[in-house]
């Protein structure tokens, strides 16, 4: 094979290799935000220190909680961890709010919400964000109007829309279902 032919062949090989590299990069670029590989933390992780263990396990096993985290990019560990912690706080407080509401309906007396339980090793802004919600919960209880509580628990964007009324019961009623029934019977 002459020099000219060799040079031409090398060029073709270079072009093919370049095109292949571009294709691979484009494919990777298109999927790198779809994380299906990030391993969820263990319930024994220091991430959950200070939070109720049974609720931690419940949240880690909850399909909707898993789906919430799954859309996060794998490299955003802090955001993912903050969300895991936030959801544990959410499950805990949501059922506490349900108890407050049901007792309020039954007795006419609004019980105070238990103190906010926070992780010992907070990720990102989880504490700040939890306090936003905690403040709003305490404000509606202090309003003296149980309908203000039910409004939050029934809201599409509220915890009641997806947090199971009974811990771990992912097939049963969610908090909003119980609130709706109680409100209808009031």
């Amino acid at each position, binding site marked *: 094979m002459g020099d000219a032919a060799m040079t031409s062949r090398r060029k073709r090989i270079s072009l093919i290799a370049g095109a292949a590299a571009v294709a691979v990069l*484009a494919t990777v670029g*298109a999927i*790198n*935000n779809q994380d299906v590989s990030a391993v969820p933390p263990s319930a024994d992780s220091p991430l959950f220190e200070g939070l109720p263990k049974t609720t931690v396990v419940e949240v880690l096993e909850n399909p909707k909680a898993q789906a919430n985290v799954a859309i996060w990019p794998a*490299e955003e560990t802090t955001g993912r961890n903050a969300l895991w912690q*936030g959801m544990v706080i959410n499950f805990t407080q949501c059922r506490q709010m349900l108890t407050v509401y049901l007792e309020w309906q039954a007795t006419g007396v609004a019980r105070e919400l238990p103190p906010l339980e926070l992780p010992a090793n907070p990720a990102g802004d989880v504490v700040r964000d939890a306090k*936003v*919600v905690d403040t709003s919960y305490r404000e509606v209880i202090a309003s003296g109007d149980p309908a203000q509580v039910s409004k*939050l628990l029934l809201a599409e*964007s509220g915890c009641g829309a997806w947090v199971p009324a009974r811990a771990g019961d992912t097939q049963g009623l969610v908090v909003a279902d119980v609130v709706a029934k109680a409100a209808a019977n009031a």
Partner: protein
Amino acid sequence: MTTTNTKRVVIGIAAATFLLLVSNGAPAQAYAQDSWTNAQVSCSHGTYQYVDSSLQHLVFGDVWVHQTSATNPVTGEYHLQSAQGNNTSAKVAASGQTVIWSGVIASTYKVWHTAQTSVNCNGSLPGDGNTLTSGWARFDF
């Protein structure tokens, strides 16, 4: 932020625009507006990126999301996810359109984008590719 989203430029962040919405004697209400410019998002339906910077929505009220533009004709499907894992329904906005969620509880939210339907933004290359989108979200506080 995602690798792709690191390219986005957020303008008008928390320097939030305080506006008085005085109408019919209603109490003054302020809002924060978070804008994104050229946030890189996927053209594949089902691939999500968040496009805002976690603004706090501090009162029970409305959240607005507006898609200003996209470099490819991608119609955005948006939903809000709170820092505690609560979600709104998904709403669809093409460029120039605004969607509104009413009765959104106080929390910190991210605005998540996916393409309403998959669009080929990648020409003859594999995959649907990405597009650059701009828009804003408005939260009450």
